């Protein structure tokens, strides 16, 4: 079955020349878009149109375009990663939109993610949190046997669920407090459920939370919006674990 064609849609997009510049919304008309087109392809088409018209193309983040790299972002019509659930923006297709619709495209609005240009934001803050403790220290040497440390299947599964986090920032972008708690919880949980993560558990929870606070992310008020916006459906139950890890670490200080 051939895809339907959207004869005309309006894209209202945030334009900002540089981090310090004052931004504004611009509305562009895009014609003849197949509903089988991905959202980012639609932006590509729009950008072609802008370039041919002698205008500056819209700067936006993207890389793998198959939902695994965590590079794409965009806040589309009041939803991080658009109106579909459990997908990143690159997996969003134009079949979710209607003829003549105005689509509002904004950058992540998080104080700790400053706008670089247009709808592209700087998510280095997440990397800084990771660097503060989101790792296990391993001495190099011979390759350990895979079965040396027995791990319950359920624990391994839960750790893997947390490790599915691609660090896209949709959680902080959608949270009314711009809180990074789901991200930090996922990064702490993936180690907290495994024996290899125990050695540095206390230091990790404290360091990552301290870095998150320092970078200006808000606090969690358990609205659960992050879990709904997360393209990897990471559960807020991990946030309870992070709170537990952090409190245990702090209480033993």
């Amino acid at each position, binding site marked *: 079955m051939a895809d339907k064609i959207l004869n005309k849609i309006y894209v209202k997009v945030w334009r900002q020349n540089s981090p310090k510049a004052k931004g504004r*919304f611009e509305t562009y008309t895009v014609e003849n878009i197949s509903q089988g087109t991905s959202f980012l392809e639609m932006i590509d088409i729009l950008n072609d149109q802008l370039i041919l018209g002698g205008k500056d193309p819209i700067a936006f983040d993207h890389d793998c375009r198959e939902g695994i790299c965590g590079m794409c972002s965009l*806040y*589309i*019509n*009041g*939803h*991080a990663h658009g*109106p579909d659930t459990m997908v990143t923006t690159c997996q969003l297709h134009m079949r979710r939109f209607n003829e003549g619709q105005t689509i*509002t495209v*904004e950058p992540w*609005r*998080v*104080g*700790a993610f400053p706008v670089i240009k247009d709808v592209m934001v700087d998510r280095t803050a997440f990397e800084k949190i990771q660097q503060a403790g989101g790792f296990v220290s391993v001495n190099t040497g011979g390759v350990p046997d895979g079965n040396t440390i027995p791990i319950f299947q359920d624990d391994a599964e839960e750790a893997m669920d947390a490790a599915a986090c691609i660090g896209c920032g949709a959680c902080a972008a*959608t949270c*009314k*407090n*711009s*809180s990074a708690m789901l991200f930090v919880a996922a990064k702490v949980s993936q180690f907290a459920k495994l024996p290899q993560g125990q050695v540095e558990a206390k230091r990790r929870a404290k360091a990552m*939370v*301290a870095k*998150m*606070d320092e970078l*200006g*992310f*808000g*606090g*969690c*008020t*358990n*609205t*659960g*919006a992050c879990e*709904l*916006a997360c393209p990897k459906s990471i*559960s*807020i*139950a991990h*946030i*309870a*674990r992070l*709170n*537990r*890890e*952090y*409190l*245990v670490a*702090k*209480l033993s*200080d």
Partner: protein
Amino acid sequence: MSNFLSASIGRKVFMSLTGLFLISFLFVHLTLNLFLIFDNSGNLFNQAAHFMATNPIIKIVEPILALGFIIHIIWSGWITLENMKARPQGYASGDQLLKWWAPSKNMFILGAMILVFLVLHLFNFWVKIKFTGDPLLGQITVAGAEMENTYALVSNLFIHYPLYDLIYVLGGILVGLHISHGFWSAFQTIGLSNINWMKRLKYIANLIGIVFAVGFSSIPLYFLIKF
């Protein structure tokens, strides 16, 4: 324990613990208040009020309760302000993910409305009983003990002022909504939750919210309809 008090999670632990403490207080409060409905002579309620006013343990708990309220209120303002600072610029397309009325999104607003209600409530009863007195609070004798007629003060307000009935019904509903999120959220914050318990705690939170909303609202409605 350094900087625990100012850390985002540390701040919230205060909200969580004071919140759970206030919920336990509300359980006692509701239980005693329901005596208003179950004994039309007012003796049962007057005895309960007299016990609460004179019992030494309650006297010790009273300032702790006040402190619980004060911390919960001040911390909520502090946390909300800090959270607002984390997003200097909002979204033009708003938030289409959660419903606008979701209690979890409106805890501060619900709390502020409850605070207004609380002040009014204190002036209605607590201030009169404790400090200023009221002609309705004449001494009566119940089961051989002299005590103030608190029942007369409460029933008079609910029987003669329908506007207050409406306000008290609203107050009950606000408290119910606040707790329907606050209860499970408190456990989440102190880490006493997981994927299984979260579902159970949310269920219990809704249940407690309904019990408080219906329980507290039923009292003014009872007096309004019955008398």
